[in-house]
């Protein structure tokens, strides 16, 4: 009895377990299917959310360049967004004669679209039964018309070309590429990788309009002074932004010429020159910075000639007084006085000062065409000649950097061609307080006092300050009659904003050019002396007169934008 009961109980247990087991299996299967669907559901939900959120993806698509990827190269634009270098796609249309169905009909249609083509020649080429290019760089209208013919013998090929719409204007900055999309000079070379992989255009600091005005004036004066080359550099002293960089002669990068003439060197960044008296500002600034002199410090009984070994050092002008203050030495451009100031500084400190402000040593710049470091030995003789800018060479770019630091309050800046996203204020002050003001004040007197050598630059409304430099050029170890005439200017002197350098390579006196002297002092026909004061200064003044209103307008726009930003 007991057994039966047990057996029944067991039976019930067994059947119950079986039912439980089946339910468990069914439930697991359903749960598994449920899980699969749930995962799929989640995937699609996330995908939908992802599509809704991914704005950058669309942005990337918008910037996608339609040109073939093997010739991808980003555009280069100026500060205002004007194209300086642009990659454009073009379509060539060819004909595959073996695929022509009705030759007569095709030629008739093509004649209608291209009435000026030589169809006798085209028929001959069709007869040869080989593929040929029918029209290179076809216009969009004609492309549409020809493709509407629907003839399968017509084959379109997409090509890309690199265009330089400004032609010669930025040739020394932009450089050029070879046929394999490889940059061979200028920014095309230094930014080669970035240009190949960037989808966004690269914005420069240069201004197309100002560059045009400066270049056209340099070209005009090249005909007047018959100089074999020229250079000009306009830079913001506070952030190192280069607004214009011109070097003549220049070239048209669209022509893809192989340039071997050394005269085509970039005279701003690569060409090194003995720049003469423009260096005296550095001598004066170094002594002020070391607190060895004050502007009113007197230098008495200065001789007219001194000797460095067997080489004489003389004043360029016999009328320069023997007793001068330090400031007057700079204003009158005294060679002997500058030597005396440099002797106070000493070789080591003077060399260190020139390196500190970037005039000596190798500059860090956005293009690779820069001068190599010459590492001058500063013995006593070198110190004396360097004091007035001889026996030592530098580039126009480094000169501009030095003048920027001298005039911006002594803050270190690096010249640059590529626009930074944020305008960083210079923070590293490398000159003592007050040095900058004293140097700029002396430079202003060079322009606006009778004693100065740059009176032609006293343009009303710009407060130009600057220093002239007339230097004979050494050829095969001997100083020749060929000159480098330079004017390094800063304006406006009350609150310097721009440094502007003009350099004329081997200018000659003009007999026909009429000078209008500033401050209603009459006119002079013909160049009295082949010095910077009568050549480079005149060119710089005429250029500043032309570009000044544009610069004033642009700084006004910046101010108003800043004001609007503050309001927001």
């Amino acid at each position: 009895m007991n057994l039966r009961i047990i057996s029944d109980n067991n039976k019930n247990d067994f059947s119950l377990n079986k039912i439980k087991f089946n339910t468990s299996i069914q439930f697991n299967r359903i749960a598994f299917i449920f899980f699969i669907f749930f995962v799929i559901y989640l995937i699609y939900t996330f995908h939908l959310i992802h599509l809704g959120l991914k704005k950058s993806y669309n942005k990337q698509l918008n910037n996608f360049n339609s040109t073939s990827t093997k010739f991808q190269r980003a555009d280069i634009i100026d500060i205002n967004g004007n194209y300086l270098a642009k990659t454009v796609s073009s379509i060539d249309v060819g004909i595959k004669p073996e695929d022509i169905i009705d030759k007569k009909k095709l030629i008739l249609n093509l004649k209608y679209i291209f009435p000026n083509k030589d169809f006798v020649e085209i028929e001959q080429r069709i007869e040869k039964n080989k593929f040929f290019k029918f029209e290179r760089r076809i216009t969009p209208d004609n492309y549409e018309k020809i493709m509407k013919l629907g003839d399968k013998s017509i084959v379109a090929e997409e090509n890309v070309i690199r265009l330089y719409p400004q032609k010669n204007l930025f040739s020394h900055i932009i450089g050029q590429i070879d046929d394999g999309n490889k940059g061979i000079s200028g920014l095309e070379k230094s930014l080669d990788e970035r240009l190949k992989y960037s989808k966004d255009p690269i914005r420069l600091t240069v201004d197309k309009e100002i560059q045009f005005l400066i270049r056209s004036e340099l070209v005009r004066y090249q005909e007047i002074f018959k100089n074999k080359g020229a250079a000009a550099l306009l830079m913001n002293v506070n952030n190192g932004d280069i607004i214009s960089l011109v070097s003549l002669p220049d070239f048209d990068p669209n022509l893809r010429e192989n340039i071997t003439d050394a005269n085509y060197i970039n005279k701003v960044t690569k060409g090194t020159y003995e720049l003469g008296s423009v260096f005296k500002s550095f001598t004066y600034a170094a002594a002020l910075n070391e607190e060895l002199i004050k502007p009113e410090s007197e230098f008495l009984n200065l001789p007219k000639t001194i000797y460095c070994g067997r080489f004489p050092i003389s004043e360029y002008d016999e009328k320069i007084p023997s007793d001068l203050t330090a400031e007057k030495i700079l204003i009158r451009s005294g060679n002997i006085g500058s030597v005396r100031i440099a002797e106070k500084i000493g070789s080591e400190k003077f060399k260190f000062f020139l390196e500190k402000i970037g005039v000596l040593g190798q500059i860090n710049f956005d293009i690779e065409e820069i001068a190599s470091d010459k590492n001058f030995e500063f013995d006593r003789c070198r110190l004396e000649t360097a004091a007035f800018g001889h026996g030592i060479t530098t580039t126009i770019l480094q000169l501009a950097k030095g003048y920027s630091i001298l005039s911006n309050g002594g803050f270190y800046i690096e010249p640059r061609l590529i626009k930074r996203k944020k305008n960083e204020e210079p923070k590293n002050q490398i000159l003592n307080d007050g040095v900058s003001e004293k140097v700029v004040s002396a430079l202003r007197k060079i322009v606006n006092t009778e004693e100065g050598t740059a009176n032609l630059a006293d343009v009303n409304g710009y407060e130009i300050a600057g220093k002239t430099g007339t230097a004979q050029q050494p050829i095969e170890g001997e100083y020749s009659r060929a000159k480098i005439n330079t004017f390094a200017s800063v304006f406006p002197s009350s609150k310097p904003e721009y440094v502007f350098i003009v350099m004329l390579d081997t200018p000659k006196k003009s007999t026909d050019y009429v000078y209008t002297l500033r401050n209603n002092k009459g006119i002079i026909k013909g160049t009295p002396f082949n010095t910077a004061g009568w050549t480079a200064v005149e060119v710089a003044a005429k250029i500043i007169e032309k570009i000044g209103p544009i610069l004033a307008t642009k700084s006004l726009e910046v101010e108003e934008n800043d004001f609007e930003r503050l309001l927001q």
Partner: protein
Amino acid sequence: MKKYLLILIIFFLILSTSLIKNSTKKIEDEIFNVKENLRNLNSELEDVFLEYIYLSSSEKLLEFQSLYFEDQLIPKDISKIKLIKLKNGQNYIEDLNIIKR
């Protein structure tokens, strides 16, 4: 009851999955079309802008000046350029000045 609920949920998930998939496909197609249109429009815009830059370049403007406005477009001295500013509802005329004090 649980079974019915489960079946209902599964049915709902199947339905919503297919609906979502269908709508994402439509969105993807639309995105593709928009992308293609934008690409063409951007390309056209760039070409037109390039043409504009060429036609409005300083070189071209000087060419047009010599052809049409020889005596009308002359360089202006900075002292002859004035600014009209609106302050407190009134217009003031100021000199354009590069010198800031």
